[in-house]
């Protein structure tokens, strides 16, 4: 029987969380749940060194001037995908802030950063210094494009591998 892991996808509004998850999996729920209760859920099986893992992806609606992220949804996660828009520098700040809030709620978790919209090289705003900052925060940094699909499988399998490597945390109430 494949094991299951809950994964939360976090990031500022418009960074491409929903597009990334849609690239990777398919939901039975309408996207309107995102605006009503702030989350929608998708599933996908991944294979990782002869082991199978069912990822249950919680796509949390992003933070912006209209809404806050419901950070309590992070409870019980075994891993985090932090999405940052490579063409908007400030989304690094938002990402790091959400990461800190998630850790305060759910403890230390394997986390992977997706620097998304990698296809838009002309408008790229993330320099070496910003990437180094993310690495210093203990994050594994990958580049993705939900538009072309480049790096999407890689980001999720890096996270799956990290989750299998570390013992999934026991749920903290």
């Amino acid at each position, binding site marked *: 029987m494949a094991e299951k892991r*809950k994964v939360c996808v976090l990031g500022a509004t418009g960074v491409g969380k929903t597009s990334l998850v849609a690239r990777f999996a398919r939901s039975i729920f309408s996207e309107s749940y995102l605006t009503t209760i702030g989350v929608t859920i998708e599933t996908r099986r991944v294979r990782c060194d002869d082991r199978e893992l069912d990822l249950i992806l919680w796509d949390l609606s992003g933070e912006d001037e209209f809404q806050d992220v419901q950070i*309590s949804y992070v409870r019980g996660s075994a891993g985090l995908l932090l999405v940052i828009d490579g063409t908007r520098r400030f989304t690094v700040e938002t990402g790091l802030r959400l990461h800190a809030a998630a850790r305060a709620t759910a403890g230390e978790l394997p986390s992977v950063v997706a620097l998304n919209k990698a296809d838009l090289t002309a408008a790229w705003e993330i320099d070496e210094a910003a990437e180094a900052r993310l690495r210093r925060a203990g994050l594994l940094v990958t580049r993705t494009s939900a538009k072309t699909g480049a790096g999407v499988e890689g980001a999720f399998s890096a996270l799956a591998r990290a989750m299998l490597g570390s013992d999934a945390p*026991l749920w903290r109430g």
Partner: protein
Amino acid sequence: MGQPRPRRGAPSPVRTLEDLRPLLVGPEQRRIRRIEERLDQSMAEMVAGALPEAVIESRKKGEALSWALEPLITDAIHERVRRDPGSFADAISPAMGPAIRRAVACALRAMIQRLNEALALGLSWESLRWRLEARRTGRSFAEVVLLRSMVYRTEQLFLVHRGTGIALEHVTSEDIPYRDPDQVSAMLTAIDAFAHDAFRTDARLERFRVGDLTGWVEHGPSALLVAIVRGVAPPAYGSVLGETLERVHLVYGGELAGFRGDRTPFSGARELLSRCLQQQRRSAPGRGRAALAAAAVLAALAATALVFWMRASWEDERRFAGCVEALRREPGLLVTAAERRDGQVVLTGVRDPLAADPRAVIERGVPAPPAVTLRFEPFYSLHPQIVERRAARALEPPPGVSLSLRDGVLVASGVAPERWIERARWSAAVLPGVSGFDGERLQAQESIDRARAAASSLEGVELLFRRGAARLSSEQRARVDEVAAAADRLFALAREAGMTAEIRVIGYADPVGSEASNRALSLARAEHVAAELGARGVPADRLRASGAGLRRELLSPSCPGGAARTGCIAGADERRARSVIFLVDLRAASKE
């Protein structure tokens, strides 16, 4: 002071006493000193040794000890509850459930009694029949009335891990189409968490209603049990759920607390849950049925062949019976003989490779399992649960697909690649215990992709307007034909993929003019395009026109507000500001 004074003239008696003391009581003095030393050194140890006996003795004499200890213990419990109410509640919750149920049952009996008296006055054809049934079954009349006038059926059960929202087990009644259980259970926990956070109460989601369906949610310390019930179930159904969830916590308490994503330890929970699944079976004879009936006859024969040659104590006997019973209940295991050889108990039988390990079954099902030797030969079981496992093992359904067995036919539902569907159709029918394959509720992933592609090609279209105009120029109007054809294609492909599509027609205006007039103009443009599409046969109920005012994505962020924005949009984008675009809502069509 109390000492007698020495008499004058006599030899000093004090001195004589001092001299005599070691001679007279020397050994006792030494013993007293030793006892004193021991008391100093090991008081605690000695008391600990004597305390249990002392308590027993004291209890025989009366209640003095209880009186003395009662305030201390009460304080200790108060303090403990104050400091850590959670663990205290967890500790007593298995005991609280039965106590509360007993109280509720008493109250219900009293109510039924009163109802009985009231009903006894009425008379009708129906009530005559119910009265006969009550007489026959020994139930009270009111109970029969309640039972017969409620019709319900449990369609799905989810056992959900509280922390992660992951479905540990999902059980359905026959012929129920359902969606990915993990997505459903995660969404239910999300809604629960959302309501909890939004209203800041300690209450939890307990009941929800969707048309004729009611969701019953039972909360335990580490898991939730969710039942989806069609119709109206009696309140007593809640206690069936509650009891089941308590048993799940009793049996799997440790596994639930240590759950990290591996569901194998919970494979036996299905059995516990099936108690809550009220099914109304239709008796339609079929090929699969015949095979199952044959298996049942075989099992019955095997059970009658079960022989005990044992002269052990009754208690022993009972534990062995417990073992055999636990094995008998387990799907895919069949015990054919139980005998005692040279003081050893040997259980012989057959086991499907996909059945649970018999030793684990015994350890799980019998409190103090006796030593037994197990001899199990492999065989193919036709038990529906095993056939389902066999099918899942052979076909490896992708995560969006659920398999279930109905009357020997393997029913698959969900989304899968075309290649998988084709392979499953061929391989399912050759599996032992499967007589056919029903893929009616399967959707091909590729057909969904095609519908998505059609949606995005429609979303790539922009119809442009002249400044101030609410109607299309003739050159742009020609492009509406192209849009109508794309919409037709979209609807057809969506239908093929089991989805519905709705097109949002969104109008925009450029920054010239007041905000109110731009909003009105943008809406007029959208409505004009929607009407043009309607005239070309696109169903109106699939179109939603709206006016969005300015097209903000084209404005550069440094732009000032108001009329000064006019010059803000440059070049080609300047025309695109006066436009109508299309957004497609694609969603899975409901199966209901």
